[in-house]
């Protein structure tokens, strides 16, 4: 088989994306393109191929490499795209610019495929940063608020992409090559710096703290399938893919290094802080978006442990998260489509009206909460085991995160699907089949990956880690961990039941946390955006700018004021000599000529 085939997963969606921008039957084109790419991805799965062609020179080569890991991400990304496109066929029917949405979606897929297949860091960066354009475009479709959020997203992601750029340059310089498969850098101080820069790029793409704040905003203003498509699935796949690549292949990262600790701290903090924010949200989509951030914490924590079981758990969690989170967003979308709102206050009693959506929601919510025997349970257990190996504090953070996750999903499910029917939910019908099919498919995969969790683990995750690492791993089937998990889940359920009863309804089950002493002040600040790192960073930049501007004006005033005055002062003496007397001028002119002649004579003598 010709190696040029590697170009197809990039070119097909790209060309289709450009066509959908111009031509009418956009759903058909988008469906056909993603379906064909999926077939191709299945066909390419687990093949080894490379393709290279001269590109920008100076060590920048157009080098694609298909191998186990990249083919797996390729398959997952394309699969999600197909399902989201199918979902959009009904969801986007009444939206304003469906052609732009499909076009951006397809081009995004092309760039993601390109970034995953690239074996040259610069080429990867090219595709990776290129995603900014479509990201901006897709969020901007959400109207006026959308543009604001799109700007925020562009600034945050753009800045972290620039960090990635410097990291890539530094890594390429240290390794003497930009080819990823040839890199293996020992952790010198400079290499650590490169790693940190690249890590910033990777975790920010995945949506980890502190680069997360555009996601909840986008949940409100961007079209919903966007959330299921990028922040829930494709960006996670891409970000965690790079994080795994740099931790496993590109750098010789060891468990003892400070970087590993940093990653675990970032992971733990992300889990806890984001889930605390999720718990108090009163909007279906916004609540989910905070979970999309919180769950990244598990992946970063897992990979940050630098022990095989943790890394494996992190990667398994990545694919699981992409599954259940996109499913959850899609249920949110069908609720929004059918009722016209996602405010939990206006929802209630949907379980009877939308049974299929409800069933999918239950499966996905159980999966994200880590209820056995669903897929989320197994990946979380692996992350727990890895975290425990590195220190109990990380383990406690992760388990605590699970408690709040379960609590917030109990609240969400209770408020939206049970309770009294409201105005909005009175005359609701089940969503149409193009929206149901993707949800059902994803929910079934969640169940499948849970019941037969050895299948994805053996098929996808183990080959990524490599036999070498697995051989070093002692089997740590710790049954205590499972018991703790079950207890925590039971506690979450108990907490919810008690709180819902005392506070009056599922929606208010977390109100006591929102209004707890100390916490309530923090939440107040958070609601006003004062704790948003984006706002803080902008304030700092504004401060620098003001200083710089002052300095600039000072320099300018030197020209406008001082130099002019200086010139006047200096020329005052000379101007006195200008009396307007012609004979005086003639004398001066003759004197000048005499001096020139004298000078010429002197230089002649010397010459």
């Amino acid at each position, binding site marked *: 088989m010709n190696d040029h085939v590697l170009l197809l997963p990039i070119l097909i969606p790209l060309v289709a994306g450009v066509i959908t921008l111009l031509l009418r039957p956009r759903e058909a084109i988008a469906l056909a393109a993603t379906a064909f790419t999926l077939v191709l991805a299945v066909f390419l799965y687990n093949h080894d191929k490379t393709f290279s062609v001269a590109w920008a020179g*100076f060590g920048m080569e157009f080098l694609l490499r298909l191998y186990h890991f990249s083919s797996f991400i390729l398959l997952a990304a394309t699969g999600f795209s197909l399902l989201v496109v199918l979902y959009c066929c009904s969801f986007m029917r009444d939206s304003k610019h469906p052609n732009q949405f499909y076009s951006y979606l397809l081009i995004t897929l092309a760039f993601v495929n390109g970034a995953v297949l690239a074996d040259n860091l610069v080429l990867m960066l090219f595709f990776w940063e*290129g995603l900014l354009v479509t990201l901006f475009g897709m969020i901007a479709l959400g109207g006026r608020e959308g543009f604001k959020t799109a700007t925020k997203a562009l600034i945050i992601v*753009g800045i972290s992409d620039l960090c990635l750029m*410097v990291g890539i340059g530094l890594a390429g310089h240290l390794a003497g090559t930009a080819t990823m498969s040839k890199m293996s850098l020992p952790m010198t101080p400079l290499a650590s710096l490169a790693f940190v820069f690249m890590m910033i790029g990777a975790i920010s793409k995945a949506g980890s703290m502190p680069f997360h704040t555009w996601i909840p905003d986008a949940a409100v203003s961007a079209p919903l399938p966007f959330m299921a498509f990028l922040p829930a699935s494709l960006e996670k796949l891409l970000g965690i893919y790079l994080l795994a690549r740099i931790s496993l292949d590109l750098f010789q990262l060891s468990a003892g290094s400070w970087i590993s600790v940093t990653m675990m701290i970032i992971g733990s903090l992300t889990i806890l802080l984001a889930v605390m924010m999720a718990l108090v949200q009163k909007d279906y989509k916004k609540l989910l978006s905070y979970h999309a951030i919180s769950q990244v914490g598990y992946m970063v924590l897992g990979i940050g442990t630098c022990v095989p079981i943790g890394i494996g758990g992190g990667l398994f969690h990545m694919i699981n998260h992409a599954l259940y989170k996109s499913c959850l967003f899609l249920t949110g979308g069908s609720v929004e489509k059918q009722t016209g709102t996602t405010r939990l206050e206006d929802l209630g009693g949907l379980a009877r009206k939308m049974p299929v959506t409800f069933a999918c929601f239950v499966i996905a919510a159980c999966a994200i909460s880590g209820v056995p025997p669903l897929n989320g349970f197994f990946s979380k257990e692996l992350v727990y085991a890895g975290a425990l190996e590195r220190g109990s504090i990380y383990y406690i953070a992760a388990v605590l995160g699970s408690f709040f996750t379960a609590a917030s999903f109990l609240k969400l499910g209770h408020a939206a699907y049970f309770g009294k029917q409201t105005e909005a939910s009175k005359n609701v019908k089940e969503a149409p089949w193009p929206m149901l099919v993707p949800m059902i498919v994803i929910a079934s995969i969640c169940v499948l990956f849970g019941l037969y969790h050895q299948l994805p683990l053996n098929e996808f995750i183990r080959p990524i880690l490599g036999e070498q690492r697995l051989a070093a791993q002692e089997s740590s089937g710790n049954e205590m961990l499972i018991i703790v998990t079950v207890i925590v889940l039971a506690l979450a359920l108990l907490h919810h039941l008690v709180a819902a009863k005392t506070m009056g309804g599922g929606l208010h089950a977390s109100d006591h946390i929102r209004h707890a002493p100390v916490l309530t002040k923090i939440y107040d600040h958070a609601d006003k955006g004062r704790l948003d790192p984006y706002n803080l960073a902008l304030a700092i930049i504004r401060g620098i*700018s003001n200083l710089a501007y002052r300095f*600039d004006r000072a*320099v300018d005033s030197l020209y406008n004021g001082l130099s002019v005055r200086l010139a006047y002062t200096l020329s005052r003496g000379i101007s006195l000599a200008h009396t307007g007397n012609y004979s005086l001028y003639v004398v001066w002119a003759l004197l000048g000529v005499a001096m020139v002649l004298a000078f010429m004579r002197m230089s002649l003598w010397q010459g």
Partner: protein
Amino acid sequence: MLSIVLVPVLGALALPTVGRTSTKLRNLLALGLVLYSLIATMVIAGPVIRGEPAATATILSHSLILQADGLALFMAFVSALICAIIVVYSFGYISHYENQGEYYLMVTLFFGAMMGLVFSANLVFLYTFWEITAITSWRLIGFFRQRQHVVRADKAFLVTFFGALLMLLGFIQVYHQYGSFDLTVIKQGLQNQPLSNLAVLLILAGILSKSATLPFHTWLPDAGVAPSPVTALLHAALLVKIGVYVFARLFIATFVVDDFWHTVVPVVAAASALTSAGAALVETDLKRIIAYSTISQIAFIFLGLAVGSPMGIAGAMLYIMMHGLAKGGLFLCAGIVEQNAKTKDVTQLGGLLKTMPITAVSFLLCSFSIMGIPPFGGFFGKYMVMIGAVQSGHLWVTLVFLVGAFMTIVYLMRVFNLVFLGEAKGAAAREGSPTMVGSVASLAALSLVAGILIYYPSQFLQSTMLQLPGVIK
């Protein structure tokens, strides 16, 4: 090759006369003169790409030489391309104003002098063309003749002229040291004897003042009073690039300079990048913001050239091209906004996305290119400059530039949001005339195409790098 310079220079003088009979003919003739140089440059470039030695032409005696090596051809091509688009834009823009004959004369003369400067391999010649560009740009900045405009034109002229005088002193030092003004002769007789630091300092003062770099930069935002196509021409595409080009021509392609300068220039550039980026974030005048942005992007070019690695230099050359295309586009968009909304104050603007969608999208795409987002061309320039700096061990300076790059994203998005989004303020502004909108759209499209087809310019620069002795390998 002589004709590349002479046709626009001499042709320019005929333009006002032609304008008396037909303005249309005059406009087309101006465009034709620029296009002639563009095509002639491409014709000459053919053999050079194939690896034949650089073409030369002598005037008057052996010491006044024009030489077309890879560096000069690249620069000439970029300048001519952007200038042609700006002239097309002027058809629409300048038709509202008086003194059009003078306008086209000055623009074409400026362009011809620029071509002469790019190809000249003699310092006296180079200085002469340098001053012609200064005089024509002085006339163009003060084109609208208001008192304040004339004062600012004077300022621009005096600052650059002061710099040029220092540079001339530097050239005399060069003559003193090597006994010739002819760069080809100097190059042969050089034998790795570095240029004296005093001469470097003097010449650098001229370069920094022309390329509006700290501390000689403030004339550039002030010169924003000029007609928009002129600001695009001067601030974005050609005038400010003269300085960086001469830097490359002298300190990379000809002389060997002390290692010390490979550290000093990046530091100066870093300070310049930060200061101007900060100012761009505070200013409220649309054209001043873009002008400050130019200063900060010029600093990136200086960084790439000054670190001296092939990656950095090639990146800087690419960035000259990509920045010229994109920034030219931004200034021309600003011109459309200014002309139709009757104000340049960004706080008075808003909601223009609805009424001028093509301008808005072009503005956005050009901004993406300057932010360095692929697949736009600016990505490659910025990437290669920063990485070139990292590879040469200038890690700290690069980190400062990283902050500069952050701020670039922030201030460009700020401008876009203020001007094109939000509530419309004041009367609804219409889209510009077809030639104007067409030229901004084509600049945006070129920014994109240049990124996608990066292979070609990059390949050309790779072969050019081999010709330059100042490249640190």
